[in-house]
């Protein structure tokens, strides 16, 4: 989870390294810690460290982690010969390593030779049938080939064994949302919220899915989850504030005929609207007019 201080630190380090101020190694360590996907910059600055023999020897044993990071970044930017050279260097140092075998499989995937990659992964799985990362790579391969239903099947089988893997639950939820299977996606988000209740972004995604499903009960629950997102982020999440306004107006529209449950206090809506206006005035004051007219049309 990337907190606000970590994000500002990452951005400032990135600016510093871009403008030639040094600190490339700290930047690479921070990217690795936060699991950010900045492959171009990692490739550029990682290669600049690796090609300089003085800086390389200054790293000591961390050199091999850098080789792995640069290899993955090179595969992401489609510089396959750089990746192959890095993996060769790693293989010379660690000849019987499963981690290097996995990198080889990923290189075959990046080249597009799916059959050979599948063979490499199955042979690695024979030695160690409970290797989580290899199972996840097979799911990613199915997704990359366009076989989404196969990916869902293998991901479900994986989650039957490793139920606590929240990254896999998140991936499954995103796949279901891309296929518009919102009920199943809601189930996945519920699992995520159960295991990590203090991450506001899961509450936000769950509320979005419930709002998309529609129906009076779902709208009420979605409003509650938007409110909990605002609670956990200290009111700084604009999307949740908009969510509250939209939910209130949708509930008002759906229950226009029935008059027994319009005792919803309009305070939440007006509070969210005020917070939005204050935020816009501070950050994008030229768009404040658009915001007020949009909110006014929602109120009816």
């Amino acid at each position: 989870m990337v907190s606000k201080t970590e994000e500002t630190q990452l951005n400032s380090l990135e600016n510093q390294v871009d403008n030639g101020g040094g600190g490339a190694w700290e930047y690479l360590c921070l990217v690795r810690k936060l699991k950010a996907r900045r492959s171009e910059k990692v490739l550029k600055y990682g290669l600049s460290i690796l090609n300089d023999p003085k800086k390389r020897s200054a790293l000591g044993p961390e050199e091999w982690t850098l080789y792995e990071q640069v290899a993955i970044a090179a595969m992401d930017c489609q510089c396959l010969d750089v990746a192959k050279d890095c993996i060769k260097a790693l293989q010379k140092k660690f000849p019987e390593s499963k981690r290097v075998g996995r990198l080889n499989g990923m290189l075959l995937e990046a080249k597009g030779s799916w059959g050979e990659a599948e063979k490499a992964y199955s042979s690695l799985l024979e030695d160690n049938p409970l290797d989580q990362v290899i199972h996840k790579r097979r799911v990613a391969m199915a997704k990359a080939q366009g076989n989404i239903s196969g990916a869902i099947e293998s991901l479900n089988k994986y989650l039957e064994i490793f139920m606590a893997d929240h990254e896999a639950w998140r991936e499954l939820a995103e796949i279901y949302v891309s296929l518009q299977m919102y009920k199943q996606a809601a189930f996945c988000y519920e699992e995520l919220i159960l295991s990590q209740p203090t991450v506001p972004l899961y509450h936000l995604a769950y509320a979005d899915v419930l709002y998309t499903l529609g129906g009076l009960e779902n709208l009420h629950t979605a409003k509650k989850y938007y409110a909990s997102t605002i609670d956990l982020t200290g009111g700084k999440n604009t999307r949740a504030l908009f969510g509250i306004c939209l939910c209130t107006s949708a509930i008002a529209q759906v229950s226009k005929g029935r008059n027994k449950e319009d005792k919803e206090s309009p305070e939440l809506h007006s509070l969210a609207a005020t917070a939005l206006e204050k935020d816009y005035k501070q950050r994008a004051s030229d768009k404040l007019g658009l915001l007020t007219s949009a909110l006014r049309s929602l109120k009816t």
Partner: protein
Amino acid sequence: MGLGFIFGVFGVLFLFHAAYSTIQYRGLLKIMEEEFSGPPMNVVLELLLGFVFCVSAALTVPGNFLSIHPDSEENRIVSLPANLDFMIFNHRAKALPLEIDMKLKH
């Protein structure tokens, strides 16, 4: 940090001195064959003073406390990590050329 450290040293010294005085007082009472009901008032005062000094040193010497609120400005979660275990490589950036020709040189 220096001041807090000095406070801590003084607090520990006060506590040791109070303990020593209590032991001496007990020895004196044994000679006079009286009951030991508790240390004298000034030793108790010295104990409390030593306690206050030690606690204030313990709070100030280690440095600033970190915030524990999930919604404080430093701690609030802004984005989730990029789920690198499921990363796929045949995305649209395959068609974008890289600006310099990069190679591993050795």
